[in-house]
């Protein structure tokens, strides 16, 4: 039994279907990336796992089905969600943004906050600053930090590098790798930045207009000529 199993997942916004029978597994302690262009269904996939989109099929965390449960319950079961950084609370201090994340894991607030501060010291230095005044990279830190405040065992990160400079991307990659190796956190990210995803993940899935097109290790995907043509233009 895989840590996270996604079986024939289809997701709907009203009558529009944006995911079609998507299936893949994430093993415990792994970093998995789902790559795809705008509108491929990456965010919908994340929203489905966290229970914010109507869906059919099965999503299982350590065997327990998540479909049909509310987000609050899913977060309590150990899924932490770092949405795109536009989804922060803009007119609120960094600290308060993090504390909203700590709502479900009350007993761990002190420890989690210390951990987030250790990972991202800048969030401690600017604890009282409004997030609307932060740079893109700092906001991404707040988003990941807020998700870590929920004491997750599975961390979902939606497009962590969108619009960020290569240097900041490298830093974020290093942090995610550290969370994975030191804390044993299982991580699922979505990305448009293929190189970022390939360098970080042990397994990569390619999503195209709601269909899972191809899956494999980064090496296998690199060897796929058709894929290279489509995504790297070589």
């Amino acid at each position, binding site marked *: 039994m895989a840590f996270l199993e996604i079986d024939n997942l289809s997701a709907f916004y009203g009558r529009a279907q944006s995911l079609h029978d998507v299936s893949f597994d994430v093993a415990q302690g792994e970093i998995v990336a789902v790559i795809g262009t705008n509108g491929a269904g990456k965010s919908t996939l994340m929203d489905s796992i966290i229970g914010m989109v109507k869906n059919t099929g099965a999503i299982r965390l350590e065997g327990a089905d998540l479909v049909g449960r509310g987000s609050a319950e899913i977060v309590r079961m150990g899924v932490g969600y770092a949405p795109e950084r536009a989804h922060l609370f803009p*007119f609120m201090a960094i600290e*308060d943004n993090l504390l*909203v994340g700590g709502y479900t894991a009350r007993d761990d607030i002190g420890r989690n906050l210390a951990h987030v501060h250790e990972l991202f010291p800048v969030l401690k230095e600017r604890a009282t600053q409004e997030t609307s005044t932060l740079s893109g990279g700092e906001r991404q830190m707040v988003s990941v930090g807020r998700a870590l405040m929920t004491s997750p065992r599975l961390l979902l990160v939606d497009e962590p590098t969108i619009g960020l400079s290569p240097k900041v991307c490298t830093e974020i990659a290093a942090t995610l790798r550290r969370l994975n190796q030191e804390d044993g956190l299982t991580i699922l990210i979505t990305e448009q930045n293929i190189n970022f995803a390939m360098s970080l993940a042990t397994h990569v899935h390619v999503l195209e207009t709601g269909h899972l097109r191809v899956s494999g290790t980064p090496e296998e995907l690199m060897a796929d000529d058709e894929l290279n043509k489509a995504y790297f233009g070589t």
Partner: protein
Amino acid sequence: MANTTNGSVIKWQHLLLWAIFLGGLALLPELADIKWIKRGTLRTFIFANYLAIFAMSWDVLSGRTGYISFGHPFLIGIGAYTTGILNVRFGVDPMFSIPIAVLVTMAAGTLFFLPALRISGSYFALITLAFMELIYQLVQVIRPDLTGGTRGISGVDTLMRGAANNYYLSLGLMGTIAILLWAMMRTRLGTALSAIGMNEEAVEGSGLNTTKLKLFAFMVGAAVAGVGGAFFAHYLGYVSPRGLFEITLAFTIIVSALLGGAGTIIGPIIGAIFLTFLLEILRVKFSTELTDAWPVLDWLETALKGQGRFFIYGLVALVIYMYQPKGIIEIVNRLLARIRGAKA
């Protein structure tokens, strides 16, 4: 929303500021005694205090969560009518009729809450407006023997005599509600409510039950509206559909909260006092002293057929809001920060 400090800490400095603010207001009747201010000014302050209660209530429900209510008088009116009917028609003592009125208002608050489960934004605002219009019509035709129909109910027991006593009562209510709400909003609960106003989906994605949180905000907002409405009815001594279920009252409440500073507690209070006095000064002086001093106002008054003061009121509100959308409280905060910066 202007609250950018760590939400879970209550410092003694803050309590001291509250004590100075409310203590200062408590001295006003003394000033009236030595003729520094007029007795009538005290009456204006009483209205400002009740408006502040309504504005705080609106702010808990709308200013924080972003579910803008245009029908807040619905809740206030339910509170006022319930205690009015119980007191006048059934001879219930205000000691019991007021708490019952608060409970009934909270029940009515769940009616408000139902649409908030499915819709938000302008649709929610319109539905709340519909609530208010609906009850305005219903209260006049259903059981007029109880509601008094279009004329309302007069002879509601007054709790206090004299401007000073009524002022202390309204100030006590306003102060108690302000401090309770303030303490509540400084907990993580308050932070979560503000977060809903900024991005409800993200709150949900962080594992918080937004439905429960919203229900809580609506219940607290309704309870405060009920307390304010019930005591206001006992202050006025009457309730009437025109005076309560009125779009003007809804807008005055909203403008108070926004102008003072939505998402704070002190903001709506300052907004309510500012607005009450602005309207009062314009009402008393607009067509006399002010128009004499500025002929252009005289022209305006003639052009707008005696309603010129509302033009000025709107203009003042607009200018402040455009200059600082976070309200008067933010203007004051920045000013203080600048003074502190200059000293350092």
